[in-house]
């Protein structure tokens, strides 16, 4: 199937990275769409956890908030928020944390707090929510965002969630035992960190995307892998699953009832 949008490609490329064995802490937006597409296609047994305390959810429509009733109604169990953060996240039971970002740097550090100075912000963003501890307590972290120069920046304005810091072994030096960001999926490419420097390197370009397109929408000088690959385009099943999910979601949130 050749007719797809970059956002659809991003969501589907992210979904493909998940397996039925994963226990995934899901952020709202693109991560939530990707996780549920995975669940509805090749990873039916994936455990999706939202920070509202819902464990093992299987929503029919994407939640607008992390605490929509649909999540609780389809969950294996619903626990309190303190229990969620203590026993399940801090206790090391989550394999993947899936985050979005307002600003991201080449080492996977994320800002969702402020643009400008913290005390006199140009734009006050929502803040971290669960992300600071998701970034340090999940086994590894996947990040997804649409490429833009204002989003992928040389230096983020605020360290909401710590990725690889200045790169190299910075996480270990702070006593963090988890892997941190191991994957970045954008609307143009799939990136993975260099094993030594931890800088994100483009490993695969989505179909029809050029190196120039990736560089023009990124605020740092992009490194490309020597054996650069092309991301397989969405299959018919992947695309139909995502579109049907989005349509059910649109109907449900506009006040109408999903079929």
């Amino acid at each position: 199937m050749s007719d797809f949008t970059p956002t659809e490609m991003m969501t589907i490329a992210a979904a493909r990275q998940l397996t039925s064995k994963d226990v995934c802490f899901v952020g709202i937006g693109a991560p939530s769409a990707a996780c549920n597409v995975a669940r509805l296609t090749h990873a039916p047994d994936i455990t999706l956890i939202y920070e509202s305390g819902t464990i093992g959810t299987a929503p029919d429509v994407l939640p607008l908030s992390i605490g929509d009733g649909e999540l609780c109604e389809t969950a294996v169990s619903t626990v309190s928020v303190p229990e969620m953060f203590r026993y399940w996240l801090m206790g090391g039971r989550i394999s993947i944390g899936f985050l979005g970002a307002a600003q991201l740097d080449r080492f996977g550090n994320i800002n969702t707090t402020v643009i400008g100075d913290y005390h006199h912000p140009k734009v006050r963003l929502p803040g971290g929510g669960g992300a600071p501890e998701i970034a340090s307590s999940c086994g590894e972290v996947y990040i997804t965002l649409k490429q833009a120069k204002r989003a992928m920046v040389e230096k983020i304005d605020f360290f909401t969630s710590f990725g690889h810091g200045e790169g190299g072994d910075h996480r270990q030096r702070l006593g963090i035992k988890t892997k941190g960001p191991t994957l970045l999926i954008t609307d143009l490419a799939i990136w993975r960190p260099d094993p030594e420097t931890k800088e994100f390197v483009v490993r695969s370009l989505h179909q029809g995307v050029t190196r120039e397109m990736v560089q023009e929408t990124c605020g740092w000088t992009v490194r490309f892998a020597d054996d650069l690959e092309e991301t397989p385009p969405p299959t018919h099943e992947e695309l139909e699953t995502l579109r049907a999910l989005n349509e059910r979601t649109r109907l449900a949130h506009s006040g109408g009832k999903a079929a």
Partner: protein
Amino acid sequence: MGKIVPLQQAVAENLKPGDTVAFEGFTHLIPHAAAHEAIRQGIGDLTLIRMTPDIVYDQMIGMGLARKVVFSYAGNPGVGLLRRMRDAIENGHPRSIETVEHSHSAMAQAYEAGAAGLPCAIFRGYKGAGLKAVNPDIRSVICPFTGEELAAVPAHRPDVTFIHAQKANRRGDVLIEGIIGVQKEAALAASRVVVTVEEIVEDFAGLHPNLCILPHWTITAIAEVPGGAHPSYAHGYYDRDNAAYLDWDKVSSDREAFAAWMQDNVLAVGPEAFADRVKGLRK
């Protein structure tokens, strides 16, 4: 002791100017009716604690009742930003507010520490996070057994906590089910607890033994306000009004539109208005 009273009286007797107050409910069961009553009574100079300030605090901040906000995620969930709160932070309108910002993990555990009567919460968190540099309440302790450095934040001890719940019985015991969030902890951490409920029933006979129940002797006052969580929801009663959350982005984007909306939907009406708002959302 779980005294059942009208909402106006419950708020007037328990919320005072200058109080530290939590209106809790994690997306689910947000006590909007109680907050609207506080706005109508004009009780100001408040320190507002809430994990997600959400529309409920956007309204209180926009009406100038907040002096300080303690929070961990200041967004309109799934929609975008909180525009009245931003106007207060960025432009000091209608008054400047002090902010104390945490992560969700820290906020949840600060309530838990408050409920446990501990002075602080200790946890593995804030590693490499920028909030440590801007919030002096985020400190650390060394584990005396392993030497591990752990984060510490002061316990939340609100003067009063407001929550919304599904049911109370005649004795004043309160039942919460579904996404239970931090309400139990926020209630047990507070000096006074005010609960609005969907309905008051005779007794809780025949219910599951492990349901989340706050016994009547932990509650100060209860008011029956059907629909009192709208546009949030009450599991088993009505759905979240997602369209209202989307609409709020427009209402709150303009100071005059906001003032007009608050006049029509909060100042000019009473708690009984909530029942109508959830009619089309009932299961």
